[in-house]
């Protein structure tokens, strides 16, 4: 049994999704989230990094009724239920945009770019959206 688990763990890959586009103007973050939700079912070691305009996807109070596009900020709140719990936000990007964690719909870990860079280096796969 212990051996089997070891073998299984050897197949667990560290996959980081990097969200760098603002929501709504382009579909990249939305379709990125669709990809993340599917990958979450595969029991890999998933993490999400919000960098640059990607942070805007987490902004509170988004109401897309007026532009006629489905909103998806709430879906980030559901990630927890899929055991996707590693949400990293780049502090520099947050400050540049005049935002704080209070402005975001979910709990995230705010990190320096260097810290996120070190985590990137540990990954087996990185996908930018």
């Amino acid at each position, binding site marked *: 049994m212990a051996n089997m688990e070891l073998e299984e763990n050897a197949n667990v890959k560290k996959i980081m999704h990097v969200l760098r*586009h*603002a*929501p*709504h*103007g*382009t579909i990249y973050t939305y379709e990125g989230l669709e990809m993340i939700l599917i990958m979450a079912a595969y029991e890999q070691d998933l993490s999400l990094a919000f960098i*640059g*305009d990607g942070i*805007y996807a987490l*902004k*509170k*109070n*988004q*109401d*897309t*009724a*007026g*532009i006629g*596009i489905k*909103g998806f*900020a709430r879906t980030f709140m559901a990630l927890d239920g899929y055991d996707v719990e590693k949400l990293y936000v780049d502090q520099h990007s947050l400050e*540049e*945009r*005049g*935002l704080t964690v209070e*402005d975001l719909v979910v709990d995230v870990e705010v990190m320096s770019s260097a810290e996120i860079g070190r985590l990137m280096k540990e990954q087996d796969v990185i996908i930018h959206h």
Partner: protein
Amino acid sequence: MLHTINKSPFASDSLETCIRFLEPGDPVLFIEDGVYAVQAANSFSPLIEIILKSNPVFALQPDLDARGITLVDNGVKTLDYEGFVGLVEEHQVNSWL
């Protein structure tokens, strides 16, 4: 002439390029991801303040709402799609894609 900007100033050079070609008095309208430029107190606020000294600045309300931007820089006027059409009635259009 109406200038429209539809890209985030953080990701694209559209805003900074557009303002070099702006004639005083000509309206600037932010739409789509462009509206992040006028969110109050971000790092582009000082630039918006400078533009406002010579040009009226507008932002599309539905795009602000979609992005959860509840507070815009002082002096920025918001309008809906009909307001957008109203500006197009008054001016030829220069869309800085």
